[in-house]
Structures are given as structure tokens and as C-alpha cells.
């Protein structure tokens, strides 16, 4: 006889979630979620406090004796200095609108990844340490004191936020939870608590000019290598110029595209476009081997560090005497430029207000920052018929577009990339409405979380995006995910490999370059990846017979 109420062995194996209130649920550091701690040399190089060899899983974090005082003093200073921080601490009514909007909450299922609760980790200390009500009521008023356990909880969860700002889109009060994470990380940095994947790019960028630590001669070597590759495909030698004084425009892009596949194809794309504009219109665009980084991991460290790293781009533009700066397909670089640059280092009066010399278009939005997004620039050229394009050359691809978080939400650049993509390919399919544009899902690796050791976090966080890509793959046969951020290009291949294995990843300029008909080019049979340009199920002869095919 089977007793339905008997306790079954198998059920004993099941996971039993903690029943305690969040404040009483201890933080358990799980491998695959946390990133490794910053090495001392990185901090020393940029004069950040408390450099030492430490591990986040060790009992002793080797903190300064007065660490609590430093954090609380830092908090006080920032509450006075940043009005947004003070307001965001005070006005949240815990309505829960943001709670289920975070890709990390959706993917990991950890309630402390609900944006409201992640912010509450800091907000509770604000109440307990800074407000009268919180001091008197304590726990009842949602307040608590800053302890070592709280600090360790902060570290664990503040590095499980990519600062993508999807949650802020849904907040009825306009609270930007990313800014709370930003300040939280800044406070942690006051006592030497950073992850190496952020601290290393910061130090490299400060010393050498880019995140990878690519030295000037190696940077040139790499682009030379691409010049050969491009020549093999197109028959045209797209030689670039470096550090050229008096050039019209300085081009700055993330170094990730110079170093890592498949971003390298996007980099080749830039080179082809730059060569085309020089040959056809005489436009002189130069690269810098010193300001060789668009990204700014200072944003993930402190406002001060962000300012220091941002300054080098403008110093280089000034040194070279260019008119304005053209920026490549980067993510958070555009958040820094669009939202912080003006008040940090701007206005860049020594540069000219950006005007497209080929079309005469004034980029009013970049009036003070003097920096134009490459898809704005390309859209302007395409709409004026200034690029000779053959979209058939991308027929192999069925594309969808991942709005990269920062350009979409921190810059509002939604139409330009779509206009460019639709101009250079024939097959484009949108993902579902609640996963694109301002509601786009993060790749799961932004804000310095694209390390190797946190792969489980990355894959869980990338799950909502992977799910939407898999949907358009099943529905429309989509085989290419276009994005316009170098971190996306670095991390989405792994994410797709796990969630949507039939889908490749590329940047916009890779497709532009494939479609661009270069003066003097040889008959084009392969794209930049050395794949035939005709679709897999179409014979080449049949493809060339198409009346719409102008490339032959």
C-alpha cells in the first residue's frame, strides 16, 4: 500500500529555498557568480587606496581598520554632492515595478537581484545610519547598520548588476538603479574593493591608452594585419593613417574590436568605410594609438576615474588638431559621452561643432561633446545617397538587431542603426517588442562583468536575450545577431553558443563593409569572414543572375 502522505526520499533532494527575511538570509559566495579581486599593481598605478593581494572568498578582506568610517563618510559626501543619489535613496516606495525587469533576476532567480532589493541593500544602510527615523526605528523602519556581512553582501550583488538601466525604464519615479550601483561601487573602491576585470582595463587604459594594454606599435601591427585580410577579400588595400596631425576627424572605437573576434570584422568594417570616404570624397579620418580606447571602465570604478580616462580622448583630439571626433560601435562609451562628458571635461571648445563635410549636415546633438556616433554619420551618408551599396552581398545572413543597452537607453539611438542595417541587407527581423529598443535585454556582461570566471552569471543573465534570439531563429530562420557594442561582440558568441547555437554575432559596420562597393575592387565572392556571399541554399550562378545584383 502506498501512503500518499509519506515523505519521499527523492523530494528530500530538492532545493529548499530559505524562508528567512532578506536581511537575515546570509550571502553565500557561489563560484561562477563572483569575479576575481583586483590585483594590487592595478590599483597602485592609478593611486587607488588599499592595494593588496586578496580574495573575496577569504574570511579576511584585509580592510583598513577604519573601513566603516571611510564608507560612511564617503556616503555622506556623495549624498551631499549627488542630488540624484539622495533622491533615489529617499523616494522609492517599493512598488515593485522594477522587480521582475532585471535580466539577472529573471535568469538567476535570486531575489536579491531584483533591482528594488539590490538598491535596498544600500538604502537600508542609508536609513539605519543617516535618517532619524531609521536610527530610531531600526529594522522596523527598514534600516540596518553597516557591518562586514553587509559589506560582503554589497560586493556580491553590486557586481551582479550590469548598470544596463532596463529597470529604470519601468520605475514610475524615474529612479535610475544603475546610478545606485555606480555610487555603491565607488564607495567600495574607497577601501580597495574592485574586481580585476575592471581594475586592469582602467590601469591599462591610463598607462597605454586602451583596455587591452596594446602598445602603439602593436596597435598599428594589428590594423596592418587587417589591411592584408581586407585586401585578400576585396583586392583593395585600405591603408589607414595613425596620429595624423591636421586630419579632419579623429576616429575612436573600443580596443576590443581590434583584439577579439568577431569584433575584428567590425574593425575591418570601419577601415573599409574610412578608406572609401578618403578615396571617394577626400575625407581624412585618422586613428590614434594613444587614445586607442572608446570604452571607459572608469565609469564602473568612480566618477573621478571616469573623468580621468575620458580626458585623454579630448587631449588627443586637441593635440592632433582635428575638427571633431567620430565614435565607433561602443556601448558605455556613449553613456559617458552623452550623459557625463559635458559636465566632467566639457565643453570641448577647442573642437568644431560637428558637420558632415560630405553632406553639410550639422549634428546638433553633438554640439558640445563634439563626438558623433558612427551610425548617425552613416545614416546621414546613406540618406543622401553617398555610399554605393549592394545589400545583396549580405543575403547569406538573416539578421536581427540587439539594441545595446547604453546606446539605446542612455543615448536613445534606436532608429539610426536600424536604418543603416536595412540599407545594407535584405533580411531583417525584429525580436519581440518587450526585448528591444528601450526595453532591450542586456547581454549579461556589461559594466566590467565580461570576465571568464563568472560564466554562470553571464549565461544566466544572457538568458532573456538568448530566449528572444532563439524565438526569431525558430520563426524566421535568423542566423545573425547584430549589435553595436564591443562587449556585446565579445560575449554574445558564448551566450548564443549556449542559448541559440545556430546564431552568429556581428557588428553593423561589418555588414556595411560587406555591402560597400569599393572603387577598384575585385569581383566579390566572399565576405569578410571568408564565407561565400550567396545564401547557403542558392547556387552562385543563380545568385549572380539576379537583375538586382549590381556587383558584377
Amino acid at each position, binding site marked *: *500500500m502506498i501512503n*500518499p502522505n509519506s515523505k519521499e526520499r527523492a523530494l528530500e533532494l*530538492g532545493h529548499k529555498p530559505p524562508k528567512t527575511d532578506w536581511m537575515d538570509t546570509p550571502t553565500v559566495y557561489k563560484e561562477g557568480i563572483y569575479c576575481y579581486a583586483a590585483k594590487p599593481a592595478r590599483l597602485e598605478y592609478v593611486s587607488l587606496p588599499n592595494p593588496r593581494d586578496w580574495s573575496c572568498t577569504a574570511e579576511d578582506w584585509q580592510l583598513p581598520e577604519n573601513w566603516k568610517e571611510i564608507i560612511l563618510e564617503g556616503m555622506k559626501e556623495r549624498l551631499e554632492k549627488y542630488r540624484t543619489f539622495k533622491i533615489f535613496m529617499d523616494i522609492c516606495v517599493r512598488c515593485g515595478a522594477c522587480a521582475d525587469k532585471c535580466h539577472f533576476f*529573471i535568469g*538567476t532567480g535570486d*531575489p536579491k537581484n531584483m533591482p528594488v532589493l539590490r538598491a535596498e541593500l544600500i538604502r537600508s544602510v542609508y536609513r539605519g545610519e543617516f535618517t532619524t527615523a531609521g536610527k530610531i526605528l531600526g529594522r522596523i523602519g527598514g534600516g540596518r547598520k553597516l557591518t562586514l556581512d553587509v559589506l560582503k553582501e554589497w560586493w556580491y550583488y553590486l557586481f551582479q548588476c550590469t548598470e544596463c538601466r532596463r529597470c529604470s525604464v519601468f520605475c514610475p519615479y524615474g529612479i535610475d538603479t544603475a546610478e545606485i550601483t555606480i555610487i555603491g561601487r565607488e564607495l567600495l573602491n574607497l577601501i580597495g574593493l574592485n574586481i580585476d576585470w575592471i581594475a586592469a582595463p582602467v590601469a591599462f587604459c591610463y598607462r597605454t591608452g586602451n583596455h587591452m594594454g596594446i602598445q602603439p606599435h602593436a596597435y598599428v601591427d594589428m590594423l596592418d594585419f587587417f589591411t592584408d585580410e581586407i585586401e585578400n577579400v576585396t583586392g583593395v588595400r585600405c591603408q589607414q593613417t595613425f596620429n595624423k596631425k591636421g586630419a579632419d576627424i579623429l576616429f575612436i572605437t573600443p580596443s576590443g574590436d581590434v583584439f577579439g573576434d568577431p569584433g575584428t570584422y567590425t574593425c575591418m568594417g570601419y577601415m573599409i568605410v574610412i578608406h572609401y570616404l578618403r578615396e571617394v570624397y577626400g575625407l581624412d579620418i585618422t586613428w590614434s594609438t594613444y587614445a586607442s580606447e572608446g570604452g571607459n571602465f572608469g565609469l564602473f570604478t568612480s566618477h573621478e576615474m571616469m573623468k580621468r580616462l575620458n580626458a585623454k580622448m579630448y587631449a588627443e583630439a586637441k593635440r592632433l588638431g582635428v575638427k571633431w571626433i567620430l565614435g565607433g560601435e561602443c556601448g558605455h562609451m556613449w553613456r559617458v559621452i552623452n550623459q557625463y562628458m559635458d559636465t566632467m571635461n566639457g565643453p570641448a571648445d577647442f573642437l568644431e561643432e560637428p558637420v558632415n563635410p560630405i553632406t553639410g549636415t550639422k549634428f546638433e546633438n553633438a554640439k558640445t561633446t563634439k563626438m558623433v556616433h558612427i551610425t548617425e554619420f552613416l545614416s546621414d551618408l546613406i540618406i543622401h545617397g553617398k555610399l554605393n551599396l549592394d545589400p545583396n552581398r549580405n543575403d547569406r545572413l538573416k539578421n536581427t538587431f540587439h539594441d545595446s543597452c547604453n546606446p539605446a537607453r542612455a543615448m536613445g539611438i534606436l532608429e539610426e542603426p536600424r536604418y543603416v542595417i536595412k540599407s545594407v541587407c535584405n533580411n531583417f527581423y525584429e525580436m519581440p517588442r518587450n526585448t528591444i529598443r528601450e526595453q532591450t535585454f542586456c547581454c549579461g556582461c556589461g559594466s566590467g562583468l565580461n570576465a571568464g570566471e563568472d560564466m554562470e552569471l553571464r549565461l544566466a543573465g544572457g538568458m532573456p536575450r538568448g*530566449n528572444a534570439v532563439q524565438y526569431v531563429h525558430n520563426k524566421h530562420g535568423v542566423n545573425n545577431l547584430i549589435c553595436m557594442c564591443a562587449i556585446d561582440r565579445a560575449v554574445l558568441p558564448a551566450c548564443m553558443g549556449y542559448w541559440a547555437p545556430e546564431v552568429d554575432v556581428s557588428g553593423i559596420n561589418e555588414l556595411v563593409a560587406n555591402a560597400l562597393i569599393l572603387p577598384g575592387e575585385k569581383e566579390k565572392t566572399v565576405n569578410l569572414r571568408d564565407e561565400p556571399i550567396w545564401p547557403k541554399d542558392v547556387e552562385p550562378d543563380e545568385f549572380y543572375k539576379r537583375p538586382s545584383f549590381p556587383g558584377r
Partner: protein
Amino acid sequence: MRLNDLLEQKKAAIIKEWFNLIVNSYPSDTAYFLKKQKDHFANPVGTTILHSLKPLFDEILNGMDHKAIVSYLDPMIRIRAVQVMFSPSQAVAFIFSLKKAVRSNLKKRENQDDHIINELIIFESKIDEVGLMAFDIFMKCREQVYKLKANGERNRVFRAFQRAGLVYEIPDGKRPGVMNVLKSSNTAVAPLDDRVD
């Protein structure tokens, strides 16, 4: 009445209970969200579980087709394999909670019928078999995570060496592109030894 007919009759209630048992393995705030939100893109985890259970149950009840079972299990296990709150056994334990869902939906009279009990033993052994398949899928997913980590590092080092001119690949008529190791890893679970596919 035969057990299969009973289960067919009570299917909706059994699946509902099974779903609740699975979802309740998450912390309460998460469980609430997984149950409440019906949009597949806003709640991919909850809806993936919900949509996989019915066909999986049907397959255990009727066909036990290996390929079909893998196709329903994979999306659920794939998610749990990267949710570090679960230990490996906890990640696949949800298969066995079907036993509880079934038993608690049988009436006392039905639970005491020898004939039904015998059939229930067979049914539960099928659940055990699905549990083993789940373990295979879980392992494939975990191996894929490690491969992604390892290959990421390997590609980076190789390409850096190549561009620095330190290594030279033997030309095969095609220039080196991305080493497409990422694409080889779609889960495909080999049939269990005693099954013929």
C-alpha cells in the same frame, strides 16, 4: 480503471501540482513571479517550465520516445544548469517530484488497488529513467559551460600569438577565421545503453 486512464483524466491537476512543486524550489519572491507572469519573453524561465511539462508528461505516460523527452527536458535543465543556487542533484530533482504530484492526486481507494499499485511502480520507474536522462543533459550543459570558458581563453591566446607573428598556421586555402568551437556544443544526449534509438 487502469492507471493510465486515471492519469489521463487527472492530467491537468497533476501537471499544475508538478509545476507548483518545481517553482516552489525557488525563493518565494521568485516563485511568485514565475507563476504570475505569463509573457514568454518577460518570464522565460517560468513559461519554459510551464510549456515543457505537459508534453513531457504525455511522453512518460505514452511513448517514452527518447528524442522527444530530451527535447522537452533540455530547455528546463539548460536553465537550471547555470542557476547556481541549485546543486547538481537539486537541478534535476524536479523530475522526481512528479511522483508526489501523481500520488497526491490519486484517491485513497485508488492507492489501495493492487492493480493500480503495480502499474504505478512501472510508471515511477519510467520517471526514474527520465531522471537519468536529465542527469545526462545536465552534464552536457555543464561541460558546455566549461568548454565556453576554456575555448574563450584558447582562442584569445592563439589569435594574439598569431597577430604577433609568433605562430603560423598551415594554410589550407582558407584564412583563419573564428575557431567555431562554440557551435559544436548543442546538447545531443546519446541514448541510454539499453535503448535502441
